[in-house]
């Protein structure tokens, strides 16, 4: 490792260093505000360091990590999201009496796992990143120490451990077949000599592991329970940062322009996507708990993203990236509202907690309305453009059945968002309960998120430029022409170079 290599890893080191500082500070002095401030400072430093390392990328740091524009872009998105989570967690946990400071240690370690994930170019770093993330999540999900939270923690622990073993087994099969765990070399070897009997099950097992983390059908069963049980800021983290990292790694490992030519894989993803869109939206109709509704809606949203992923073509990555950013902003905002409204005894997650909220706390309810409209994909929000991107990606690849299923299911989706809206604006008279003061920091984060949502929803060009500039996988994946990859499923044409 050269010095330049080390320097390129600066963001990761900063993120890894901050929890150490935190542990030391906590050992001497328990102060919630100070802990949050240090957390945010560390994250901001990491964010700034992304610019500092920009001249050195793309750079392969050891076989494990590839610091390319793709990784750096996603790190930026995730770090910003985590800053929001940390600030939202402050008012939330301030109301709790017991040890609050350790949460931020766990949070930072989880982010470290996420950053490793998005930069991983090797199955080992992929697995390490995922485990760092999962282990911290177990503790974070069970952090509230009430029955539901602990139950959710255990549930997540058992299922995540099981899915990790699937992942490991899949990796083993791939290694057995290809003799390498490096992404770049895997792509090369896979085209030349490979036994589909080992490779394909290997990939499918990895999809199982990733699918579990994303909570897509049929690996979604944990999602509603965990979303409901976990403290609201942790749910926000789980729903946005951890899923963003997982989807980013999925793209890095499995995306290539000809993914639809692998017919089996394509079929697997079609089933997952359609299942997620239908099950997520339909099951959400039956819920009365806001966190559970949002959980099912997130299942559906990852179904939509998979449509873009399946479409392939040059819009696909861009569409997915835009969608992930939009989804992160929106979901952070939605769970941010939940966490700002929660008190020390329980989370504000039943529909009754929101009855007539607009007439009592118009600003918060207004922000929540925006978030819900964005989730539903109504124009002038980022959610609309994200959906537009996905539809455009699907249409450009002429995947009409997927696109139409998306349209139909998102109309079902609209129904339950409207149900929350109806409750928000319910109330027959002007019941002027004394307006509770909005926690300044939480309110500030929510306002920023809402502003982003509208700004990029109306004028997305700056964000699109950034995304396109980091157009991305071309750097990390060695560009193997689709025709060459196709050959795995066809007889070698005579005279081919292989």
């Amino acid at each position, binding site marked *: 490792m050269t010095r330049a290599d080390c320097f390129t890893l600066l963001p990761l080191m900063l993120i890894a260093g901050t929890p150490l500082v935190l542990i030391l500070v906590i050992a001497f002095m328990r102060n919630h505000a100070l802990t949050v401030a240090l957390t945010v400072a560390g994250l901001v430093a990491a964010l700034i360091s992304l610019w500092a390392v920009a001249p050195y990328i793309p750079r392969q740091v050891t076989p494990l990590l590839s610091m390319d524009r793709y990784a750096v872009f996603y790190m930026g998105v995730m770090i910003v999201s985590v800053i929001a989570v940390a600030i939202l967690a402050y008012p939330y946990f301030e109301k709790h009496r017991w040890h609050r400071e350790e949460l931020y240690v766990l949070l930072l370690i989880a982010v470290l796992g996420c950053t490793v994930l998005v930069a991983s170019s090797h199955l080992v770093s992929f697995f390490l990143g995922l485990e760092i993330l999962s282990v911290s999540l177990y503790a974070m999900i069970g952090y509230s120490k009430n029955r539901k939270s602990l139950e959710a923690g255990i549930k997540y622990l058992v299922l995540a451990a099981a899915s990790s073993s699937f992942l490991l087994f899949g990796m083993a099969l791939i290694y057995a077949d290809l003799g390498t765990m490096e992404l770049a070399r895997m792509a090369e070897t896979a085209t030349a000599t490979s036994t589909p009997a080992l490779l394909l099950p290997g990939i499918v097992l990895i999809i199982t592991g990733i699918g579990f983390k994303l909570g897509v059908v049929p690996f979604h069963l944990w999602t509603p329970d965990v979303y409901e049980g976990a403290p609201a800021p942790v749910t926000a983290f789980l729903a946005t940062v951890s899923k963003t990292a997982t989807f980013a790694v999925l793209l890095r490992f499995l995306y290539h322009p000809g993914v639809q030519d692998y017919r089996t894989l394509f079929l697997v993803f079609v089933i997952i996507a359609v299942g997620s869109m239908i099950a997520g939206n339909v099951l959400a109709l039956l819920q009365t708990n806001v966190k559970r509704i949002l959980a099912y809606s997130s299942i559906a949203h990852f179904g939509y993203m998979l449509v873009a992923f399946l479409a392939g073509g040059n819009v696909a990555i861009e569409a997915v990236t835009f969608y992930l950013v939009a989804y992160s902003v929106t979901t952070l905002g939605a769970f941010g509202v939940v966490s700002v409204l929660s008190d020390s005894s329980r989370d504000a997650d039943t529909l009754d907690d929101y009855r007539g909220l607009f007439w009592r706390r118009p600003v918060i309810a207004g922000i929540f309305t925006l978030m819900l409209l964005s989730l539903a994909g109504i124009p002038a929000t980022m959610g609309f453009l994200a959906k537009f991107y996905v539809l455009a990606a699907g249409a450009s690849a002429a995947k009409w059945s997927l696109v139409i299923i998306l*349209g139909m299911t998102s109309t079902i989706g609209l129904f339950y968002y409207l149900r929350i809206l*109806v409750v928000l604006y319910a109330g027959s008279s002007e019941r002027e309960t004394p307006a509770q003061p909005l926690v300044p920091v939480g309110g500030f984060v929510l306002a920023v998120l809402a502003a982003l949502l509208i700004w990029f929803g109306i004028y997305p060009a700056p964000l699109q430029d950034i995304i396109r500039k980091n157009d991305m996988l071309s750097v990390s994946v060695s560009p193997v022409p689709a025709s060459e990859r196709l050959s795995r499923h066809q007889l070698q044409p005579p005279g081919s170079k292989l």
Partner: protein
Amino acid sequence: MMLIWLIVIPLVAGILAWLTARWSTEAPRWISLAAVALNLLLTLAVWIGGDNTVGSGTTTVWLAEVDAPWIPRFGIHFHLAVDGLSLLMLVLTFFLGIMSVLCSWTEIRERIGFFHFNLLWMLAGIAGVFVALDLFLFYFAWELMLIPMYFLIAIWGHENRIYAAIKFMLFTQLSGLLMLIAILALYFLHYQATGMYTFQYGELLGTPLSERAEWWIMLGFIIAFAVKLPAVPLHSWLPDAHSEASTAGSVILAGLLLKTGAYGLLRFVVPLFPNGARWFTPVALVLAVTGIIYGAVMAFAQTDLKRLVAYTSVSHMGFVLLGIFSWNPLGLQGAVMSMICHGLSTGSLFILVGALQERIHTRDMDRMGGFWTTAPRLSGAALFFALASLGLPGLGDFVGEFLVLLGSYQVNVGMTVVAAFGTLASTFYALRMVQRVCHGENIQHWQFSDLSPREALIVAPMIVALLWLGMYPQPVLNTFAPAMQNLQRQANLHAMARQNLVNE
């Protein structure tokens, strides 16, 4: 530039109205009134000052135009333009906008700021639909006007408002998404043919399409517009939404929202897919005639006044559909005249029903009767608009329906005959309504005040406008004639181009 103001003024005024509601209950009303009046003046200025003859030549038909790149990634432009058709729709929009602000003056007593915010944003959305010339922008405005409408129904509506609001949203949203998919399909097919990504109406007009593609894409558009129109099998959201909305909501729904569907058919479906529209014509004519008869029969069977008026809309919009798909000058003139006059006459009926409901808190006709003695001005106005609605010669609606029938006669005699019976049926429901409300015995001994000066101020311009349109419609016909000629010319041009493509 004027076009941007038309959109920006209501948006800003909406926010202002919302904010000022904290300090004053009157401020939001005056702000809204001023904003919409200003917009009306701006549009009238274009109408009167505009040189409307240019369109008859081969040059542009646009009286005003704004075009700026918006989302370059997809080749999306912020492209607004008005021709005679758009202009008349805008005049109608802001005219009815003023009426709906006025008619909610005393009706809406709660959440006044938010109400006017929604009202103004919806007017901005509707204006956007009528002037957008970029298909993405069109869809954007199309969807944007739904959310305020949803709130107008769901918050200030009557008993069953939540159900009606959600039903309205789901119908329009699903059909809207189908249209979006169709727009995207057109966009990519255009790219494949020309190598250029664009949503511009002018560019997409001549997109070479195979027959199958044209058919499917057109269907996506037609479903969206048929839901809004509404054409018969897709109309079931309408009676609920109309009867549950507050007066202003009903006025805007009937007067403006339905027109966006008809406008979409005129502006987009036929010129973009001329061959598809020709294949679809028999179906459309059947749907139109079914709507005319069905709406009239259903209206006759209602006891809820608002539902009655709502069903008359189904019937009238059937005439509009008939006129559009006749696609000859007479039919098109009739369709646009019907759109305008229906907006005025049905809007006024809703205002009167709203005024009545504000006084007696019921819409049930079984409990009414003999109001002529109690409220002669109100009853007289009701009779006038009922007569307009049934198509009495001398009033606007007659001109529209007569022209539609003349136009459709050239296309299909059978359908025209059946549709003509619809005008007969409308006599039944309109007169029955007047008879049961204004005449007979006042069983419940209602006593209430007659139309107030404010309400008279709303009704009087409507009466004048309908009389003018009925007696001397030529200025209006002249205004949109070049636009219609242009649409027909475009359609013929592209129909032939595509035919040649198929023949090759």
